[in-house]
């Protein structure tokens, strides 16, 4: 099996879609000659030309809105944002427009577009450049939200997202672009709305997505050394959430910890843990546990920023404090 980085897997998925589907085109800042702020679209302009790989002015509202219009007009636009934080400038087009179009037109109009954006903190980009708004967008009815943490899922989810007839937010963990892994040469898809059990275990269920996954793998190793067997689950999809896989796991382990590298308060893991409390309370050995980043703006100073982010010590510490593991 070929080994790809997440960056290469996304590029492959875009290349393949441009190659096979004439209705697909890309828009975004610096995606052409420059190949994208994170080098995801490198080489695509040369291959497909400026009509299908379009550099935009710094006008998120315009090019997200144009994406909505082009999708309504029958195409399948893929829009790249330079940062999830900059989605705010186009939020009206995403939340009020793309998400509502189908419902509010009684099913007459659809907006099958993909909005890709790097997300997450940890790179000293400070408050207005480090936020993870996929967790806000996951609450919006009419949108799909996915967030891969491996090259396999990045490619599989991108394929499903491009085919999807609803608008999809495709959140790319900025710190994981270089992460590599095996990706089958034969065609496959990863369906939207399916979580993945990445490591099985019996004593506790650990749940996260994106940047949280490497922290969970590290935590599972620490726990294993203590004789605790953790089941690790990657949500992969924040909307819809694959509740079935989560419930099955918690019914088996009786303990659950959900980790978010975005702010803890009001985050996606609040939804996950509340759902598990509702549906698995008879199986739980103690309260559901939720960990997230500190609820302050992301600071530039490295120590402060790293101190805001949860780590494996927080995970194992909370598990022993809550469940005596």
């Amino acid at each position: 099996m070929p080994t790809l980085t997440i960056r290469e897997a996304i590029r492959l998925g875009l290349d393949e879609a441009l190659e096979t589907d004439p209705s697909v085109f890309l828009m975004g800042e610096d995606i052409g000659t420059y190949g994208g702020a994170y080098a995801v679209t490198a080489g695509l302009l040369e291959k497909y030309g400026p009509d299908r790989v379009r550099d935009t002015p710094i006008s998120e509202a315009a090019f997200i809105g144009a994406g909505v219009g082009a999708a309504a007009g029958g195409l399948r636009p893929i829009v790249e944002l330079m940062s999830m934080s900059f989605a705010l400038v186009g939020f009206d087009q995403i939340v009020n427009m793309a998400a509502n179009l189908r419902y509010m037109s009684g099913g007459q109009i659809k907006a099958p577009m993909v909005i890709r954006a790097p997300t997450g903190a940890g790179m000293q980009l400070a408050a207005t450049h480090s936020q993870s708004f996929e967790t806000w967008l996951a609450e919006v009815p009419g949108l799909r939200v996915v967030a891969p943490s491996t090259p396999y899922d990045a490619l599989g989810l991108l394929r499903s997202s491009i085919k999807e007839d609803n608008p999809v937010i495709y959140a790319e963990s900025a710190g994981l672009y270089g992460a590599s892994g095996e990706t089958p040469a034969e065609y496959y898809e990863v369906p939207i709305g399916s979580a993945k059990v990445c490591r099985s275990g019996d004593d506790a269920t650990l749940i996260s997505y994106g940047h949280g996954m490497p922290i969970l793998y590290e935590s599972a190793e620490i726990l294993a050394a203590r004789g605790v067997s953790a089941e690790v689950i990657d949500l992969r999809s924040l909307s819809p959430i694959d509740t079935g896989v989560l419930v099955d796991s918690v019914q088996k382990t009786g303990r659950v910890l959900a980790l978010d590298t975005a702010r803890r308060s009001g985050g996606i893991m609040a939804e996950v843990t509340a759902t598990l409390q509702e549906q698995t309370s008879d199986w739980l050995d103690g309260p559901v546990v939720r960990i997230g980043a500190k609820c302050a703006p992301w600071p530039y100073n490295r120590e402060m920023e790293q101190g805001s982010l949860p780590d494996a010590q927080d995970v194992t510490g909370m598990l022993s404090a809550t469940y005596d593991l």
Partner: protein
Amino acid sequence: MGKMNSTGRETQIASSAGPAGLPDGLDAAGVVEMYRTMILSRMLDERVWLMNRQGKAAIVASAQGHEAAQVASVRALDPSRDHFLIYYRQFTAMLALGVTPLELLCGFLAKSGEPMSEARQFPLHGSHPRVDLFSFSNVVGTQLPQAVGVALADRLRGDQGRVTIVYFGDGAASQGDCHEAMNFAGIHRLPVLFFCENNGYATSVPLQRQMAVESVAVRAAGYGFPGVSVDGRDMFAVYQATKDAADSIRAEGGPVLVEAKVDRLLPHTTDDDHTLYRSPDDIGQMRGRDPIDVTSRALRERRLMDEDGDKSIRQEARRLVIEATDRAEALPYPDAEAMYRHLYAE
């Protein structure tokens, strides 16, 4: 708020200097002082770029190529009463306003004692306790509507004769915020000076793919106020255009848009590689009209400075940069435990 020069040193002027042909409001000493700030800015800028390569500064956006436009626009205003909303490329403007090299370095290195934000804010963003400036967002263009509000506050408080200058790039001019701010300022004839540093690029995207017109200044007509375009490598031209704009605004003439055409000599930031989208020829041409060289030549031709004067200005700047670097590196990092401080009113 007080006005300081960036070096606090006496200027060295060739004795034959006279105010010959200088724009109104500029004298020989002032002009040399502007050049001194440009040199200091260039050397400090080179130093932080290097510090990024050494892993000490997380990210740097350089002002190299923008120095003349920045120093002249600040000089044409009155920092003791005007308001400055800047953007992330304004190293030189910050120095000209009185932010010290040590303070700027503390910002890049996120050291304790950084006065803009206690090391919380992205370098070259923030506000300053001694200088009336602010700049808050990485999201480009947000400062334009804010500037309109600062000017509106002056108007509502009956505070007359103050100008709010807001700086932005050609790329930021494509944001809805830019249009909305200019329209609002135009309607209410607010005392705002919109100052665009047009370097022809939004990161890698050249002007032709950002706008269908050749200059940002022409847009002003659509908002009902004047727009002028000047060569931003020519300190005197920028000074004159900005001064005229400020005079007109102070006389309650409503907003003005000044566009300075400049070159961004380096990549967009330390994360960028501009050879991917600029030819060696283009880069060479830009270097051939470096505002530092243009200004040095102009000052010598006007006999405002001689070669020795130039040399000693450079030596002095080098000394200041080394001194500030040593001091900044020796400072501790702030207490990470103070994470929640300043989140809410205490």
